[in-house]
């Protein structure tokens, strides 16, 4: 940025001659940058306006009510809010240990010839479209889950609330698994970069004091990268909350808030995917727009938090070295 201020000075002399071209250049590029801002603001306004009838009709009860009945024009979004939060939480529970272990492997343990291909595979995992995960989840994973996992679980532990209900296959469990697979690469890739940024001296000091390799990782490397890893996890959470296609295809789409892993459930993103194209009633469209706004606000907060954490790490690392 220092260089750009230096650029200003030669301009002084030639200002008069080039004013027209420069002014045009500035205005055109600026107009396009501002166009984006304007469209975003406009979009926010239009969406909020289309959600307004639902807010007026139901107030806060829109978020806490659990009846979603387009025919009777009664709309409560709680089952979707619950489904989104619960499935994302379960996905984190599955993906965080595996993802962090994978990141430790890539940054600390892997032989050099292996870390390149594994990194490449993990990044490829992030590039596969959601609908392909959904296809695989629905046609391969769900039947397998139903016969090999859910039926035995339900038979043995069916009276626990966590495993009650019939083993359909399409379920909260299937959604959490697919989500976990989809957010794994984010956690692994970001946490790997965070751990690689830990200064070498940190490891050498711990090893010199007689630590085993694991103790070095656990006591010297991970605490140093803690905030950054947390940032990676929250970034992944933001992704999980908004994930649509794969979840819609395997979660079963039943608007009921239940703790059971075997029951079909519904998420905010899925209800938008399933009903928006066919919503005709004014209140129905308004309720769906309200769901979209709620989803937007939740991901906005979560991503803001992640960005702040990652930013803090970057600045602390920059300041200390």
């Amino acid at each position: 940025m220092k260089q750009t201020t230096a650029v200003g000075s030669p301009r002084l002399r030639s200002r008069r001659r080039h004013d027209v071209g420069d002014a045009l250049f500035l205005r055109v590029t600026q107009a396009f940058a501002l166009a984006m801002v304007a469209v975003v603001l406009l979009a926010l306004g239009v969406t909020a306006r289309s959600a307004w009838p639902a807010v007026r009709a139901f107030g806060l009860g829109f978020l806490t009510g659990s009846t979603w009945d387009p025919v009777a024009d009664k709309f409560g979004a709680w089952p979707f809010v619950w489904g989104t939060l619960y499935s994302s939480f379960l996905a984190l529970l599955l993906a965080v240990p595996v993802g962090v272990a994978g990141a430790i492997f890539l940054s600390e343990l892997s032989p050099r010839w292996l870390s390149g291909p594994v990194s490449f595979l993990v990044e490829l995992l992030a590039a596969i479209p959601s609908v392909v995960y959904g296809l695989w989840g629905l046609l391969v994973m769900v039947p397998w889950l139903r016969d090999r996992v859910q039926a035995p679980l339900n038979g043995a532990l069916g009276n626990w609330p966590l495993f009650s209900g019939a083993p359909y296959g399409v379920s909260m469990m299937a959604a959490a698994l697919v989500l976990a697979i989809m957010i794994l690469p984010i956690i692994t890739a970001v946490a790997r970069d965070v751990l690689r940024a830990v200064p070498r001296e940190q490891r050498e000091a711990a090893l010199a004091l007689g630590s085993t390799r694991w103790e070095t990782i656990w006591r010297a490397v991970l605490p140093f990268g803690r905030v950054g890893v947390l940032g990676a996890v929250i970034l992944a959470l933001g992704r999980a909350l908004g994930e649509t296609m794969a979840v819609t295809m395997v979660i079963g789409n039943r608007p009921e808030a239940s703790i059971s892993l075997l029951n079909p459930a519904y998420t905010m993103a899925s209800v938008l995917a399933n009903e928006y194209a066919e919503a005709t009633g004014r209140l129905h469209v308004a309720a769906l727009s309200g769901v979209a706004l709620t989803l937007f606000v939740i991901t906005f907060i979560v991503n803001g938090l992640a960005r702040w954490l990652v930013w803090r790490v970057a600045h602390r690392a920059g300041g200390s070295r």
Partner: protein
Amino acid sequence: MSGLAGSRTSLRRRLTNLAMLGLCWLGAGLAVLPLVLVLYYVATTGLRALNLDFFTQLPRPVGEPGGGMKPAILGSLEIVGIASVLGLLVGILGGIYLAEYPNHRMVQGIQFTADVLSSVPSIVLGVVAYALLVVPMRRFSALAGGVALAFIMTPIVLRTTEEMIRLVPGSLREASLALGAPRWRTAISAVLPVARAGIVTGALLAVARVAGETAPLLFTALNNQYLNFRPDQPTASLPVQIYTYAISPYDDWHRLAWAGALVLVGLIALLSLLTRLAIRGRALE
């Protein structure tokens, strides 16, 4: 190193070490396993279902075997094309502004908007495009789908363009200005050519990202059983067609969905390969 430490460490600590390191290896294996599984099924099942008809035929009604995804493939090209024109135009020009005038007061606001936009779930961007275009036009259209995808592309292109231009050494810019070139000439003839490879990479990444997007197209471009090139009409796209076929109860349609998934993944792999080549080209320069 480990020999030195090992000679004095207790058995318990050594076992913990082995167990935890083993778990980390396991974690890496588990992280790669789903990819292997998904790719294996897409490749084997998809290859079996893929044939020339897939690219040249219209979808057939239920019960009639065969048929293909020609409208979906061409529709995807059309929608992604519309999105690219909009997204690249706004993203690259806006990115140039952010990089060339970093001291302007509105720059931070624009960066913030781009960051917020890039974190919005894609389905919500579909809702936005619906409210902006489908409602006033009173019909689903390729244009609305393209705009929804452009929302996803713009912040990616904007931020990579900005970062790539910022990487260009200041001396280059100063040399051009010292020779008497005006600022716009400097930006276009001295700075942009150096940043070109990076900007192209960002653009390709953004195209690869939106090519597989399904959610924002469901209620903007909708779908279409027939060929359609008019941007104001409902248009089929590869991801939406895969989705429609995947959730249907027919084996024949499932096979087509697998073939579609294979084509889609192949397309995206090709784009990332191009990206890698672009990066390598820059490294060689």
